[in-house]
């Protein structure tokens, strides 16, 4: 599996990262280097081995259904690049 420039553009788009055109080819090379190295996993027959779901050998914690949070619209929006009346503001989204 080789990563070409179009693949880099596609995954950059999926990841919502603007990669300058000049970086596309070098990035493809870097990723190819890494993926070629990773190919060694192909040597291992992992048929029937369960995928690890968690290294923590314990049960998921459950919490009680209680309102214990919220009421902090100021704190929530104080770091926002753009906000008004406690709304976060973004460029118009067309549906």
């Amino acid at each position, binding site marked *: 599996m080789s990563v070409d420039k179009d693949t880099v553009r596609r*995954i950059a788009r999926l990841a919502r990262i*603007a990669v300058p055109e000049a970086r596309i080819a070098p990035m493809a090379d870097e*990723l190819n*280097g890494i993926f070629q190295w990773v190919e060694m996993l192909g040597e291992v027959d*992992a048929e029937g*081995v369960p995928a*690890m779901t968690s290294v923590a050998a314990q049960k998921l*914690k459950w919490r009680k259904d209680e309102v214990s949070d919220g009421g902090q619209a100021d704190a929530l929006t104080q770091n*926002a690049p753009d906000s008004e009346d406690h709304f976060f503001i973004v460029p118009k989204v067309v549906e």
Partner: protein
Amino acid sequence: MAASNDLISMTLAQARDALRDGKVSSRELTGAFVSAIEAAKPLNAFITESGEQALKMADASDQRIAKGEGGALEGLPLAIKDLFCTRGTRTTAASKILGEFVPPYESTVTQNLWDAGAVMLGKTNLDEFAMGSSNETSFFGPVFNPWRANDSNANLVPGGSSGGSAAAVAADLCLAATGTDTGGSIRQPAAVTGRVGLKPTYGRCSRFGIVAFASSLDQAGPMTKTVRDAAIMLKTMASVDAKDSTSADLAVPDYEQLMEGSIKGLRVGIPKEYRIDGVPAEIDALWTRGADWLKAQGAEIVEVSLPHTKYALPTYYIVAPAEASSNLARYDGVRFGYRAADPKDITDLYERSRGEGFGAEVQRRVLIGTYVLSAGYYDAYYAKAQKLRTLIARDFTSAFDQCDVLLTPATPGPAFAIGSKTADPLEMYLNDVFTVTVNLAGLPGIAVPAGLTANGLPLGLQLIGKAFDEGTLLRAARAVEEAADFKHSPAKWWSV
């Protein structure tokens, strides 16, 4: 009042006792560190210094001590990796994308420290989002290792990603520091700065409030001058936290007490697969010496096999970027952090904020992660890597049938020169070769300073323990520490 150099060179345990006995005040101690940090600017160990706040915290500690009310870390000045969210103090993850983010909340680990009376000196530098092994990917510039080779004035890396914390501990800029370890980010920098770094069992310290890199691997831990100090720090950092679904529901034992005692009869495993081509002879020699030290103290040395070791690093470089690509999706320029100027639409806002806000290494890993999770590649990469993790974890389980702890090198070499490995990402990734297996299996590991290279640079040994058996791990680490008798400190070239 003792001379300022004597104050800052104390261990955490010594300072604790001195404060308790009234030999020094927290204000004196904290003031000495604030001055030391001021003088150590060339190291670039801190992103945010909070001297004023530290002195206020110190005064409050002194009052509590006067009333006999002090907590376990009362009045002790610490440095905090800038990946822990600290209420009211800027938290950057060493990234441009977090901008001037000031968390309105506190991470559980740091809250535990403040509740115990500790004093915060500032937020230490790191690789951007903890992605790196040399602290060269920080938006705030690289950290310099306080150590230099005795035949050169070249600046060396402090290791990464907790490079700022490692440098701060090694240069006596704090009594101890917090770090986080996803693939070796506590142990590797501790080793190349001649200090102790402990990555606890996954789930021992809460991840709540720590900027996530790879959720199934991240774990906070202490970076200290001694093994005892690591035990003291871990006792307070660790907790059972209802805010982290993966935190362990196990009471936190007294590690300082568990650390005491002989290692007579302790079975120490030497994993044969950790003998890797291309690793300097000095490292191998140190490893052998370490085994001899433990044997001399009554331990039994057994050779064990961890057959899937060579697959750990590529497995890691699938799992960690995959999780990171998702964890870092929240940095989108909408609710906090950096937003690109004049976005023409929402996609442009996302793409440019993230393109301008993330550095090269973070972008590379996010793209790797996006790729391995994408349609058609998931099974070949992510699913396969998660199976490999199971095999790697099983290797450890069977090894621990034969032994109580494992002894390995901590790093494949000493600190290297700034810029010498940045061209090839793969070469950089290889720095984690000895540490990353431990994260994949969720086990505790500790790096202990064990010697110097021929040109005077520190090297460490790593011990790996069974899950939640940090007590035994610390006891073995103490044995290495005592035998190594590592008393070296870097020459203070930065504060002339």
